[in-house]
């Protein structure tokens, strides 16, 4: 059991545990905090995969900005514990669990069959490499992202602005 494997099990455990906690918590704010734990675990996984920039951006953007938005929305909707109603479509659980298990089985089967080539020993996703690639190879997606962000601003403004009248 190498050190990397122990680290992977630790962080993957945090991720899966956090994700399970998101589903199982009764208070929606607890779910949001569990999701933050998941993101922290994911960020640690990214760092072990030599994608440091992605790990830090994950914390700054996801756990920092997006989860804050989640918490705002939960507070906005003022959801309390007792408000969760009984699901009338309870029978769907008997359909979902077997199908989900089949999907999981298929994915696991494929993953075990994959011939994992050794990584090609490069220096990983350093910020410099990301910067260079972003502005040369992936230039068009980069500029398209600015259009996407712009559109998100306009859309959010329309949906969230207060009625002046």
């Amino acid at each position, binding site marked *: 059991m190498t050190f990397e494997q122990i680290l992977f099990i630790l962080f993957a455990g945090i991720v899966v545990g956090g994700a399970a906690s998101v589903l199982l918590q009764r208070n929606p704010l607890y779910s949001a905090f569990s999701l933050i734990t998941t993101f922290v675990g994911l960020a640690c996984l990214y760092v072990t995969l030599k994608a440091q920039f992605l790990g830090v951006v994950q914390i700054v953007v996801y756990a920092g900005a997006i989860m804050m938005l989640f918490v705002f929305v939960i507070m906005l909707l003022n959801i309390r514990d007792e408000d969760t109603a009984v699901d009338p479509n309870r029978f769907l659980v008997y359909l979902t669990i077997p199908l989900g298990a089949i999907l999981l089985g298929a994915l696991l089967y494929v993953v075990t069959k*994959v011939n994992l080539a050794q990584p090609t020993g490069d220096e990983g996703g350093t910020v410099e490499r990301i910067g260079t690639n972003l502005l040369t190879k992936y230039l068009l997606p980069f500029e398209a992202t600015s259009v996407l962000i712009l559109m998100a601003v306009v859309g959010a403004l329309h949906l969230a602005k207060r009625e002046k009248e």
Partner: protein
Amino acid sequence: MPNVQELNLNYNAILPELCVIGAGLAIMMYDAFAPKGPRRLAGWIALAGLAGATYSVWRLWGLETAPSFNGMLLTDPLRLTFSIVFLLVAAVSVMFSMQMLDDERLPAGEYFTLLMFGTVGMLLMGGAGDLAMLFLGLETLSITTYVLAGFRRGDLRSNESALKYFILGSFSTGFLLYGMALTYGATKTTNLAGIQEAIATGALTSPGLLTVGAALMLVGFCFKIATAPFHFWAPDVYQGAPTPVTAFMAAGPKAAAFAAMLRIFVMTFPADGGDLSRATTGVLVIVAIMSMIVGNVAAIRQTDIKRMLAYSSIAHAGYALLGVVAGDWTSVMFYLLTYAVMNLGAFGVVSLLARVGDEKTDIEDFAGIGFKSFGLAMLLTVFLLSLGGIPLTAGFMGKLVIFKQCWQAGHTTLVIVAALNSAVSLYYYLRPVVVMFFREREEEFVPPRVSTMAEVALTLALFGVIYLGVFPGRLLSELDRLAKRTPAAAQLNSQR
């Protein structure tokens, strides 16, 4: 300084998108700086941008353009033809929306900005040469459509529509992204040409991984085009959204998702009868049959005309899949063009007849208006008959082309099922016609106001339906000529 030549920054190739982005930015600035009052110029700026983009596409027509921006943008005939479809859909939607925004005093600046950016997303999807580009275009388009579906903030149906569309759309994007990630894992590249090469030379880390990746991408796309069994969001979303937005949604994003599907499953994955192609073809056949049957059977029982048209669009997505199964992009493009004009026309008339705020969308509300509002009723009849596939209409031609391609590719049972479904569908397409012309009306009927732009849009749609139905020859031969020049198709033809 990086080697700029290597990157092949072909600004000519990106000019259509730049025109539409420019229009979007101009509308944004106009909206921000104009004095108080309705933004009357916003729609015109949008139309100007779309006209500019159409001209740019026309300039690129027939030129041999290499992949630009480091393989991210493919300016092949598929991109150019689909771009014409997208720009047409956007233009007609703009014309129909102008009246709605005026009547309901909704913010026109924001509406047209979002519409423009959505069109940019569609254009990028059509020309994508890389999975990353495809995903970005898809997300730009999808998020725009989510917001547009919920544009009537005070209307509960619109809110419901936006929420359902958003949740299911994001869910399906998750599947799509997972599939793309697994495909990348299998082929070590996201570039579509690179993927094709990796599959052809067998340099995959694992064929199983590619199959699962392809399957997940297939699920993601089938959600987006609203085919069964992933269609459950479509009727509610189409019914709740403002009708001009529904017109846009039913025609534009569907065509864009089909373009993306064609790019991946027809142009990139091999059609050589190996495991992957047999698996995807098999799944698509089942999905197509289910969509046609579910769409047609469910449409028969609908009382709301928007829901009925939503189920009909599910069935039409099934017909269009026949072309994807046959591996021929020109027939799918032609079918989607005919589908776009007739659907836009039908939803356009419904948006006028349903009054301000989409109050009257029940079919019974249209009882007896046939001779009182003769023009609109006749237009709706023509569009519904075209959707049903009556000869001399665009719908018939589209189905003929796509059925022929599929028959020649060997899927005879599928074509028979499709033809039977098409015949059955005439029942529910004719029902509104019967209600309009042969039913007595109890209440008063005042013909709706039809603005000039709506008239122009309806004339355009009608012209499209008749032209494509009666004189499709010129377009079809042009498509044939272009198809032979597409590299992947040439490879495909040489394998047959």
